[in-house]
C-alpha cells in the first residue's frame, strides 16, 4: 500500500509499504529517519516515541496505515536548522546521554511534557517519563536535563 503522511512538516509518500509494518519501520527504513529507535517493539521502552498529530506515541505499536494523512514529528524535527531545541541542548549539557539509545524517545517525551507543563515538579517529570526506559544513566542526569530545559524555556 501507499502511505501519505506529513513528516516534520514535509509531505512524504512511502510506496510498497507492507500492511504489517509499523510506523517506526516506515520512518526508519523507508523515509530515512533513523532517529527514533527500535528496541522492545512492545510499547514497553519508549525509545520509538514520536509525535503523531501532536501527541507522543510509541511508533512501534502504530500500524503504518494508521499514519495515513496524519502528521508525524520525529526527534529529527525538533531542531530549527542547526539550532538544537532547548530540550536537546539540556540533555547534552547535563550529561544525560550515555549510549544514547533511549535519548531520542526521552527528548520527544520531555519536549511534550514541557509544552503541557512548563514547570513540572519532580514527581510530574518522573511520571511523564515512566514509559521511557534507560539502561545506562540511572535517570538522575535525565531529570537534571529536564529541569534545566524547563528553567530555560
Amino acid at each position, binding site marked *: 500500500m501507499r502511505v501519505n503522511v506529513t513528516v516534520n512538516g514535509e509531505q512524504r509518500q512511502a510506496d510498497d509499504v507492507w*500492511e504489517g509494518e509499523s510506523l517506526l519501520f516506515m520512518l526508519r527504513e523507508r523515509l530515512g529517519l533513523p532517529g527514533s529507535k527500535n528496541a522492545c517493539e512492545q510499547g514497553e521502552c519508549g525509545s520509538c516515541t514520536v509525535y503523531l498529530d501532536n501527541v*507522543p506515541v*510509541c511508533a512501534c505499536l*502504530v*500500524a503504518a496505515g*494508521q499514519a495515513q494523512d496524519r502528521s508525524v514529528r520525529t526527534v529529527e524535527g525538533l531542531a530549527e536548522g542547526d539550532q538544537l531545541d532547548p530540550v536537546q541542548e539540556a540533555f547534552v549539557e547535563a550529561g544525560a546521554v550515555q549510549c544514547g539509545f533511549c535519548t531520542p524517545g526521552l527528548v520527544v517525551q520531555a519536549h*511534550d511534557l514541557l509544552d503541557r507543563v512548563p514547570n513540572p515538579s519532580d514527581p510530574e517529570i518522573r511520571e*511523564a517519563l515512566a514509559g521511557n526506559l534507560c539502561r545506562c544513566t540511572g535517570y538522575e542526569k535525565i531529570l537534571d536535563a529536564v529541569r534545566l530545559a524547563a528553567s530555560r524555556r
Partner: protein
Amino acid sequence: MHAFDYAAASTVRGALDLAGPGSAFLAGGTTLVDLMKLDVLTPDRVIDVNALPLKGIRLHDGALRIGALERMSDVAAHPVVRSVHPVISKALLLSASGQVRNMASIGGNLMQRTRCDYFRDVTSACNKRRPGSGCPALTGVNRNHAVLGTSDSCVATHASDVAVAFVALDAQVVLRSKDGDRVAPLEEFYRLPGSTPDRENVLGPGELIAEVVVPVLPWARHSTYLKIRDRQSYEFALTSVAAAVDVKRGVVQDVRLAAGGVAAKPWRLRAVEEALKGGVAIERTFAEAAESAVDGARPLAHNAFKTALLKRTIVRALLDAAGAR
C-alpha cells in the same frame, strides 16, 4: 507476522460490512499490533475503525457516555469525567504510559488481552490461545495470575484498570452490529473462563463496542482507584480496587467496590458492599467487611499473597474514598 489485508472504514456500516469471522478491528493498535507481531493474533483482515464517529464524552439522561474511540488520555483529562467520576480518570492515569494512553482507545482497552506470559508466547501451550492445549500457568509461574473466578482451564487475570472502575459504577456497553444495537452491563459482557477460556466476552463476530454508558451517582464524586504493583508506575496491577462510598454522619449509606489484578474478569465485590452498608465508617468495619472479598478464592503456588493484599487494598481504598485519611 501473518499476511492480512488492511482496510480503513469511514462509516460504521462500512466497518460492519467488512467484518466477519477472522477479521479484527483496529483502534489504537496497542494490543492488536503488539499481539500480531507475536503471532498470538493472526487476523486475515484488519479493519481500521479510527475514522468512525464513535467519539464524544458527554452527560446525557443521567449518564456519562464515552465513545469507544475516545483515547485513554483524553478521557482521563476530561473535566466532566474528573468531576463526576474521578475513579475513571484515576484508573486511566494509573494505566500504561503516557505514550500508550495517547494512542489507546476505551473500546480497545475493554478488549485488551491478558498479560499471562504463556498466552503471549506462541511456543507454549495455552487454552485461551489454542483451546485444548493445556494451561502451563496452573503449575508454572503464576505469581501474577488470578485467584478469583478461575477454572481448571485458565487462571489468567483480566488486565484492564478502567474496566474495574466501570464495573464498580454499573457501567453498560452499547454493542453495535448489523442487527442493530444491544446494551449489556459490562460485568456481564465478560465471561468467566470455565472450560472455554478462549471466549472472553459476549461480543459476536463483527460486532463493535460503540459506547460506554456510566450512570451518574452523585456521591461517586468521592471515589478512588488504588493500584498496588511491583513498581510505582507503568506496571499492571497485583491488586487494585475501585471504591466509591457515601458516608453520612459517620455511617456508610451506600458503596460500590470492584477489584482488579486478582480475577478472571473485573470483579465486583458485592458481598463486601452488603457487609459495609449501615456500618460505621471506620477502619475496623472496613477490615471486617473485606474478609468476604476472598470467599471462594483459589490461590496458586506463587500468588497466595494476593488474598491478604486484596483485603488490605480494599481497606485502604475505602479509607481514601471515605475521606477518613
